[in-house]
């Protein structure tokens, strides 16, 4: 066990956990922030995507001990009230089916648009291919990313 001070969604949190604990479980089990989802634990599904200093990373692969001073953003902190352009576009296109993968999809999409404000279909495919949606909402995700690109 070791103590860590983490900057998450603009706030400081302290946890006392095994240093190898992935951020995914720190968020879900220790900080009661279950918006970040568990899907595979092996970097294969993207459900756990969060931002580390603004870029998308898989929280299941990020031991808490490596975070240090870097800023973490989770789906709970992407915007104050669900009004990030990506979130608004998701609502406009009514993307979700079961919804389980969508936090990860949204965090990936927000990161993509930061790097590439006007992605082509191929850019979207390449960047998003690590995020599985078992319900098959890919077409709507792509449409929503394009809408968000126009608005941001």
């Amino acid at each position, binding site marked *: 066990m070791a103590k860590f001070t983490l900057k998450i969604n603009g706030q400081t949190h302290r946890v006392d956990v*095994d240093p190898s604990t992935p951020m995914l479980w720190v968020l879900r089990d220790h900080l009661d922030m279950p*918006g970040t989802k568990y899907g595979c634990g092996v970097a294969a599904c993207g459900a756990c995507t969060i931002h580390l200093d603004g870029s998308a990373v898989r929280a299941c692969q990020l031991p808490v001990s490596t975070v240090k001073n870097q800023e973490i953003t989770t789906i709970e902190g992407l915007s104050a009230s669900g009004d990030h352009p990506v979130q608004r576009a998701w609502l406009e296109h009514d993307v979700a089916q079961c919804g389980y993968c969508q936090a990860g999809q949204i965090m990936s999409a927000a990161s993509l648009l930061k790097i590439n404000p006007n992605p082509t279909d191929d850019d979207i495919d390449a960047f998003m291919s690590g995020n*599985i949606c078992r319900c098959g909402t890919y077409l709507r995700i792509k449409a929503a990313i394009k809408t968000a690109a126009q608005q941001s």
Partner: protein
Amino acid sequence: MENNATTYSRRSFLKVTSLTGGGMMLGIHWLAGAAPSAAETGLDVVKETFSFNGHIKITSDNIIQIMAQNPEFGQNVKTSLPMIVAEELDADWKNVVVEQAAFDLKLYTRQFAGGSQSVRTTWKALRNAGASARHMLREAAAKTWGVPLDEVTTNAGVLLHEKTGKSVTYGEMASAAAEIPVPTDVKLKDLKDFKIVRSPRKNVDGLNIVTGKPMFGLDYRQKDMLIAMIQHPPAFGLKLKSYDAKQALKMPGIKHVFTIKLFPDKYERQIFDTRTFNEALVVVGKSTWEVMNARKKLKVEWEPITEKVECVHSFGSERDEITPAGLESTDQHFAKMAERAAQSANELRKDGDPEAAFKNAAFILERTYSAPFLAHNTMEPMNCFAHVTESKAFFAGPLQAPEFAEKSLAERFGMPLEQVEIQMTRMGGGFGRRAYAHYMLEAGLISQRAKAPIKLVYSREDDMTYGIYRPAYTATYRAALDANKQLIGFHVKGGGIPEHPIAADRFPASAVDNYLAEGWEIPSNLTIGAFRAPRSNFNAAAEQSFLDELAETMGKDPIDLRLEMLQRAKDKPVGKHDNYDPDRYAGVLKLVREKSGWDLPENKGKNRGVAAYFCHNSYAAHVIDLTIKDGEPVVEQVYSAVDCGIVINPDAAANMVEGAVVDGIGNALYGALTVKDGVPEQNNLNTYRIIRHHEAPKKVDVHFVQNDIDPTGLGEPPFPPVFAALANALYRATGKRLYKQPFGVKSVE
């Protein structure tokens, strides 16, 4: 034909109460009383035992709260069912709140999501409830104003009396309406007056989803809750022999290591009591990561199982289920199936004289199709919270069929039903998998033993290697043609591990003079369960690929051939014909033909395939256009035509169909769960291939047949025909017919 209009032998009742603080509440209690017909066995039976509870609340400040308690796994019923109520109530959708707080409500346990039945079975009950509430509001207004009832009209949540110009909101009249007796008979709206149903409405949980609010089973937590995980045998055909938990118990955060036994010896299982391993080795600790780590320190010895035969009850009937011993392998499965297919099978339906037709045939087309086990891989793995004490068994988790679980749970914990409470969470995908509540029972037994509230968590590996797969299937289709290349006989013989897929009365039954359907089965120790359109998902793939090849052999257009056969089934049906409606079946083919520009010369050069299917009371057809790039199929465009009767929420319905198309393409190309010596060869999403963004079709155009038929299923019917539409398009692109799923990409090169 299967039409729900005739199956409303239901018991339902409405009950009105006043709300403290003003307003009315109309409780809707509705239990399906229809017994399954003899022809329906196994999972199809489920639809006949559907029941429903919900309510309409109108508060004095004019908030209209509608609660529909069907479990939500992405099929959008949490939005569409309240839309039906709001329509008949003539409410303003803006003022309608669909009850959201999944975690702080005591939900009833009379719901089932599965078999695409949610809307189909509630349609009339919900309309009735909405219309009754509206009637009571009108009657209250008529009394208050002293005007005749038929002069009181409504418009978007407002009661009006035109002559006097009086008007009040529903909220203002709600307390008075609570005093009005529930009408025994109400008139439903004319379909042409619908304002809410049939117009797109956004998912009521949309904002919660995009902001990451806790809604799913895995998100559920209670104070002082512990985390539990199960170490199940590494292979089907093994069971626990002994274990040493010394090291594991020394790991940080670990509280207990023990075993639980799911069902006692001689327990008589119900159909949804499917479980793969009866004894489970459990690790309980403070957090998920700690439990995951401690599991690695367990020293476990496993031993082979011995064959067992169990009696399984299925809605009044019973059958023996054999679980053979041994470590099975996929290669051996397919070899065994080929061998078994050559032997005689059970006759399921026979019309005319198929033997003679095949004997006299000038030409016989014979093709064999096969498909592997599939894992559901719901995005959210299995999990359940349980707190079992002496006086109460409480569960919270993602479950498609609590109705079937609660009885088993009550019996297993020796408690009356009232002491079992199941709170349903949103489900991160279902696809049939969550109709099997073994994880609830496991959670309950663990909580009881640990004397603590616990959440049982399946890792992805646990989830994928547990079983309850879509069965492995094979089927041989044969068509007899006369010298003029006319179809004179049709024969399908299908089998599977451990069940056969054949639906003998479906198309092309009734469309061919001489017809034979047969089935056979091989037992296995791999467990199986319903998977999005059970059996149909294989039948459609095989049969609709075969019809494509048959059309080519007969020198006919594939849509024309199907339409001719359907015409025959309509004009002069052969044998018993009560399964599908040839007109509606033809309708989706005609619609997809039109929308895809099937007959246009500019489309003739495209690599396109067509397929259609009927199941779960609805009809679907797809046309797929694809190209090949670097040996991989690129699906350029899909046209889908669906007849599911009245479409409640068109945009959400289109989303469902798009998802079914993506899911179908993914499973057809990549889906497979294989085993070697009893060990699943895929155990996570890096080895089990699921369709991803770049593999999804570029465009899906969804069209619904416009009619006024009561709504039928939508979650499942569009899924099965995707496989064959893809296979048929791949044939055009590559010149190769595909008989074996998954099609992969190599066969396309």
